[in-house]
């Protein structure tokens, strides 16, 4: 290496280039450069290094890294007090109360660790009598009903989530209600459905997107669109067709060349978690009678096939890519059933093979769902279980149902909800965990 001693002029040049001079020093230095040719020549040599350093391409981080970090943090955060024995004991007491017809919110209970906002109006809640599943569903819907804001949304930040997810959380909650519309006392929630639908529609932008233009807006878009299609199936007057068309146009235009969908700033890369909601929207649109979506669906099916390994499991960004573990993606691989209509007869055998392989993985997850509590996973797991008709799978469904019911909050201001203490609770908060668990429970009926 050359001489490591720098001259005073070199020190001045570096200070100037790094903008570490006072205005007076700067002026004096600039005057010298204009008159001192030797200094100017030396300055230009340093300046080329300086501009080269400024041009060096920076690495960009991704939402995936954020999620990994937050998952790590979530694992380190333990409740200050264990509520498990408390909930178990109170759970039995609550069930006895239910047998007599009524639950009451108690304001004296300890709030949960992260999200301590109580529902807006602590009125007594009447929960229907019936079996455990029925009781769990009723409690969940009532909690969601009371957590709804006056404008019809479920406000992310009120329940431990980021405000940017309010549209998606409203879509998930709406799905929970619409999927449960078979319930006998459902009429009480029609206003809830109407207000939530209205909120989503009012948040639609001219380009068909919903809510703010954020990096992960397609989560909001896909979930809201799926929810609106479920609403229009049951309540045709609540959703204008034009809104749905614009929502679908936005999804189609956002599709990457690969056939998948991804984060807005991910340079055209796609991932399974975002894609799954968009393709569900497109298939629902096609089933509803929208035309011109075949190419998008075919392109996505090709992408899904390309992402699937020989065991029938989709990777996150490429085959065998499991940045958040494999089990969630095994459950998400149930997306394959969405394409039944798209696959030709000759593909059905191939699909059956896939189902067999998928089934084995599904069993592993369903037999130990508590190992990795993940309400997002339960959503897709129960979607797949619903598709599997054999008796064996109903036993698996029972296992999942038991876990979900055990985890439901049995008393206190959050009665009927689920603690957001799974892998994604830090992102979606209590509305996410409760809506996902409710949809999963309803799917098991």
């Amino acid at each position: 290496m050359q001489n490591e001693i720098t001259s005073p002029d070199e020190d001045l040049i570096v200070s100037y280039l790094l903008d570490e001079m006072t205005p007076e020093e700067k002026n004096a230095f600039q005057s010298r450069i204009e008159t001192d040719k030797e200094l100017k020549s030396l300055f230009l040599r340093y300046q080329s290094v300086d501009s080269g350093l400024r041009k060096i391409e920076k690495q960009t981080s991704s939402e995936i890294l954020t999620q990994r970090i937050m998952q790590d943090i979530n694992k380190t955060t333990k409740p200050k007090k264990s509520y498990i024995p408390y909930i178990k004991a109170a759970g039995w007491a609550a069930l006895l109360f239910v047998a007599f017809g009524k639950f009451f919110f108690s304001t004296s209970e300890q709030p949960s660790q992260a999200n301590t906002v109580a529902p807006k109006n602590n009125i007594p809640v009447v929960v229907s009598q019936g079996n455990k599943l029925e009781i769990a569903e009723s409690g969940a819907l009532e909690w969601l009903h009371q957590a709804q804001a006056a404008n019809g949304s479920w406000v992310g930040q009120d329940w431990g989530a980021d405000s940017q997810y309010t549209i998606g959380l409203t879509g998930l909650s709406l799905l929970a209600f619409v999927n449960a519309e078979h319930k006998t006392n459902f009429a009480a929630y029609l206003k809830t459905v109407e207000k939530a639908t209205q909120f989503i529609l009012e948040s639609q932008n001219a380009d068909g997107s919903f809510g703010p233009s954020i990096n992960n807006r397609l989560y909001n878009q896909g979930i809201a669109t799926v929810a609106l299609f479920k609403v229009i199936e049951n309540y045709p007057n609540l959703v204008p067709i034009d809104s749905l068309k614009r929502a679908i146009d936005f999804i189609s235009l956002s599709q990457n060349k690969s056939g998948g969908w991804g984060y807005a700033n991910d340079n055209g890369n796609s991932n399974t978690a975002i894609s799954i909601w968009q393709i569900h929207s497109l298939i629902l649109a096609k089933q509803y009678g929208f035309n011109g979506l075949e190419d998008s669906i075919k392109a996505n099916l090709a992408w899904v096939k390309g992402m699937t390994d020989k065991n029938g499991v989709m990777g996150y960004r490429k085959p065998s890519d499991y940045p958040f573990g494999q089990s969630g993606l095994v459950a998400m691989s149930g997306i394959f059933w969405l394409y039944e209509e798209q696959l030709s007869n000759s593909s059905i055998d191939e699909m059956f093979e896939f189902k067999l392989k998928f089934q084995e993985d599904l069993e592993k997850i369903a037999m130990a769902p508590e190992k990795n509590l993940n309400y997002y996973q339960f959503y897709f797991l129960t979607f797949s279980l619903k598709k599997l008709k054999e008796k064996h799978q109903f036993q698996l469904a029972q296992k999942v149902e038991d876990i979900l019911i055990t985890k439901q909050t049995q008393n206190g201001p959050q009665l009927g909800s689920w603690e957001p203490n799974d892998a994604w609770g830090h992102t979606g908060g209590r509305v996410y965990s409760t809506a996902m668990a409710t949809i999963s429970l309803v799917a098991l009926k």
Partner: protein
Amino acid sequence: MSEYSNDEDVKWMLEAQKGDQIAFRKIVEKYQSSLLNFFYYMNASRSESEDLAQESLLKLYLYREKYTPTAKLSTFLFRIARNTAIDYIRKKKAVSMSFEGDLLESPDNKEYRTAEKDWQGSLEIALKKLPEKLRSVVVMSYFEGLKQQEIADILEVPLGTVKSRMSFAMKQLKDLMENNNAK
């Protein structure tokens, strides 16, 4: 009330101390790219850089209760990051990540060997060849936009030391590039 109490970073950190994970997520979102670049241009591979950035932010979270707003949060965080890097080198010591000036021999360097053909690529190689003490001041200054006083606070050395390291680093880069061109 310290002079940093109104910084948004400090506010988020104080909220995180109370258990607000959304506030901490904002810190993660703000600094993860800076940390990624810090480790990457300190000679870690892309995946190592992600792991080290993750580790640094996790440490920040674990230390949150000890944090008092007597300095900028970025100073506190980069001090953690630098110590994380040094711990990592000590553990790995030998091959994959050297902070002692050897060029990293990992798959990531293939692209640098290819890029050697052009001036910009050569400068990146030259930067990676600098001894750690010199490289760290360049990386913090050019990639993180930190002022020399902030770098001095992070490294816990006098301002004059940072100034002289920066001058040496720039001189070495200039000389390396000129020698390269002369070949």
